[in-house]
């Protein structure tokens, strides 16, 4: 059994990206280097044989995916699962969390200007964000961050890959900078307690 074949079998059978070291653990003949070389060799083979799929590198792992040019054929097919896209408010909230993580709900709401509890829960249900800790302040608020599934969903290898436009203001680049003005904090927390029913405006139909 060649290393390429074992690696291919694993990539083929896996539903999510897998890391080279995970693959290496299935057989003594493998180590991370061997796996990386096998992946490079497979990529070349797929390219030369014009396979409809290739190996993508994402979320710190590897995954077999169809090449984009087949999407239109696949979308016509019932037994191919349809990808679901995020709504505008969900994207906005996700973007804030991605760039400012770890970040609490009150700060997210301050940036967006609207309540976000429901949207955050949606993002949690979709495993794109999760609670990553608790903040220091009053009530030790939950802090949110992105998951590895977030990386997969957008095709990033790591958070380093997040697009950074030159014009991003300092507040976006530096997560340590507090965005909540001191005196505002009380009011915000207050509002949060009261707003149990809060809904999200602007949800797209």
């Amino acid at each position: 059994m060649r290393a390429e074949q074992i690696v291919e079998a694993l990539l083929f059978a896996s539903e999510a990206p897998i890391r080279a070291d995970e693959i290496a653990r299935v057989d003594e003949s493998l180590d991370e280097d061997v796996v990386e070389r096998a992946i490079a060799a497979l990529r070349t083979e797929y390219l030369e044989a014009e396979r409809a799929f290739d190996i993508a590198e994402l979320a710190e792992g590897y995954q077999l995916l169809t090449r984009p040019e087949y999407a239109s054929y696949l979308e016509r097919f019932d037994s191919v699962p349809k990808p679901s896209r995020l709504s505008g408010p969900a994207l906005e909230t996700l973007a804030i969390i991605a760039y400012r993580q770890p970040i609490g709900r009150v700060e997210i709401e301050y940036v967006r200007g609207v309540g976000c509890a429901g949207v955050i829960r949606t993002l949690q249900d979709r495993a794109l964000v999760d609670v990553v800790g608790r903040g220091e302040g009053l009530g030790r608020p939950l802090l949110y961050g992105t998951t590895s599934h977030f990386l997969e969903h957008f095709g990033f290898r790591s958070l380093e890959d997040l697009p950074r436009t030159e014009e991003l203001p300092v507040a976006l680049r530096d997560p340590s900078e507090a965005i909540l003005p001191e005196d505002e904090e009380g009011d915000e927390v207050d509002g949060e307690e009261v707003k149990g029913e809060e809904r999200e405006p602007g949800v797209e139909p």
Partner: protein
Amino acid sequence: MSMVVKSASVSSASGTPVGPFLVDLERFRGPMDLLLHLIRKQDIDIFDIPISRITSQFLAAIEGIRESDLDSAGEFLEMAATLVWIKAQVLLPRPDEEEDEDPRAELVRRLLEYEQIREVCGLLERLEGAWARRYAKGYVAPRPEARVEDLPLETTWEDVYRAAMGVEPPESRRTRHRVTARSVSMEEKTRLILGSLEGNRRIEFRKLVAPFREKLHGVMTLLAGLELSRRRRIRMRQSQPFHDLWVYLREEGAGDGVVPAPSTGDQPLESAEEGR
């Protein structure tokens, strides 16, 4: 949410003509979005926002929020209160002991940040679209799933202890609830407005808010004012840009539009949007 779509320029009760500024609230994801739209659409220098004009336009745009939407509209109203507050700060003669920061600075910073977020959203949306075109293997032959409890647990006591440190004593939680109970009610502000109008034809909105230092009071007063004008108990009028927001008592049984226009040239709030 079912915010009523009403354009900013739909005529007021007194039949003010339709203005040039059509705003469909449902298009907006929130007050920041609306505000940014107003600024960008008019090519306004974000670092020098004509706060009076923008405030008028913003207030006009949210006129159409239905009373039943008051809860969800709170975000727009809070922004309205912030704008009114900033406007007041800009207008107020300030003791020139020290050059204060431009009252608009924080708003500008928030707007820029929000705009960047929107930009990033565009990028993310494109990436999401591109990756949605790549499909993973759709079927995996059923294989025995390892049970969670069979997986080795890597958690250390340090992890648990750190979590223990974060446990919040119920004591402080109790205090927190007491502190954060909403202390400003709309009824209170309704009474304040009506009470202040007893024996007065009109009163400046600013005077209603001035004794209270917290922003929440401003928000609730504005909310109460909007509610009262909906119930046709009062009228809120705003003058030309750089004038104040006035609250008038509506006489019982008085018809529409009979409140005498003050000689200062005040005009109904609804039409104070000619600044384009």
